[in-house]
């Protein structure tokens, strides 16, 4: 967090398309146009001289590139729709994945995301679940593990649901399920009693869920606890006592803007008590 973010000055010009390779890790702004490696203009600035000599330049290697959140394909152009840092990940085959690592609080449902929702209404066969998006998601009573027409799941209004989106696009009502493709719950379903639900930014959720995240490992050493992370920015925690639960919630909320040293200080203080 401490490192300075190099804002590329020319990005304010907006209209100039830049090669995605050169702005990796830099801030990109909505409206910027990116050029993929195979699209790079040979007549571009500095391009002609530096380009390595290629055998039969007529045939271009068509590698598939995935553009993740924050990027949009427009014909053959790649446009930025969110502001944040441009990230890239190599994948086994193809040109890898590009996405924008952005900070935001508003959740937009995405197919396949696991989220925490609150049941707001029960109408016939369908539950309405508030997931923090623009519209409540629908959840069928049959979309639970072991549920049949006769054997209804015990879901009440106000319950917390941990589920996954199967339908989520800009034109349709989002739909959730609490089973995977094999019909197993895999941890999804109604989240147990008690515990505390709070909201954080979407960026913090991803930060905490990163495989090399130290925060979670340190938190895990403090008390016996259970956490559920929803990609919609909701975190549910539960520990043995209410006091511990509150401490955990506060730590997780605060660690977004703490340096490593500050965090370690707090954790050592908590471990003493």
């Amino acid at each position, binding site marked *: 967090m401490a490192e300075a973010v190099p804002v590329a000055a020319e990005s304010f010009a907006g209209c100039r398309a830049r090669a995605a390779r050169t702005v990796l890790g830099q801030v990109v702004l909505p409206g910027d146009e990116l050029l993929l490696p195979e699209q790079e203009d040979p007549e571009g600035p500095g391009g002609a001289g530096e380009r390595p000599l290629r055998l039969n330049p007529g045939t271009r290697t068509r590698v598939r590139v995935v553009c993740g959140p924050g990027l949009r394909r427009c014909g053959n152009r790649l446009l930025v729709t969110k502001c944040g840092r441009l990230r890239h*990940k190599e994948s086994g085959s193809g040109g890898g*994945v590009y996405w924008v690592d952005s900070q935001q609080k508003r959740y937009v449902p995405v197919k396949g995301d696991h989220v925490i929702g609150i049941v707001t209404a029960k109408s016939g066969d369908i539950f309405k679940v508030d997931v923090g998006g623009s519209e409540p998601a629908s959840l069928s009573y049959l979309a639970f593990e072991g549920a049949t027409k006769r054997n209804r799941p015990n879901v009440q209004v106000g319950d917390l649901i941990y589920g996954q989106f199967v339908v989520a696009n800009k034109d349709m009502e989002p739909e959730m399920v609490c089973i995977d493709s094999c019909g197993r719950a895999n941890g999804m379903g109604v989240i147990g009693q008690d515990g505390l639900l709070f909201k954080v930014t979407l960026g913090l959720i991803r930060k905490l869920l990163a495989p090399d995240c130290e925060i979670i490992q340190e938190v895990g050493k403090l008390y016996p606890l259970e956490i559920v*992370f929803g990609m919609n920015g909701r975190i549910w925690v539960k520990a043995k006592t209410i006091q511990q639960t509150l401490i955990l919630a506060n730590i997780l909320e605060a660690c977004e803007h703490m340096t490593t040293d500050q965090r370690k200080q707090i954790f050592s203080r908590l471990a003493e008590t």
Partner: protein
Amino acid sequence: MQRGLDSETKKQLEEEEKKIINEEHWYLDLPELKEKESFIIEEQSFLLCEDLLYRRMSFRGFNPEVEKLMLQMNAKNKEEDIENETMELDVSDEEMARRYETLVGTIGKKFVKKRGQVNYEEDENGDIKPIKPKKMFLKPQDSNGCHTTWLQRCLVKVGGLFWSSSCWCL
């Protein structure tokens, strides 16, 4: 003369007309289809981009069920590609071969019809070979002391083959 020429030109004209109609019929007035396949795939989920951990966690035995699930899911993500290559073998290839060696005969028998049933024999190399029944002339049995059935039907089984022979006794 005049009429003959007329008919010929008529035919020609007709053919030409047909050709034109045919061409008109079978020609689609469409702009040429260009290659529209895009090599950019849109994907709005962070899951694909960042290798995120399993989103339910439990520590220090608070919820053993979740703890087990969490270990399982996180391990799966990590070792997905490694495991594919070095899948642990419960039964080694050799053991498998040894086991099936003895089964070849028994299972083989199942698929052989009664009529074509043959005995298997191992030769000196350990290969299994069917014994061919030797065909030979079967001499009708003489009835020395035989009871007086004037038509006797008997089944003689030689090497799995049924021979039905009838012998006449007087």
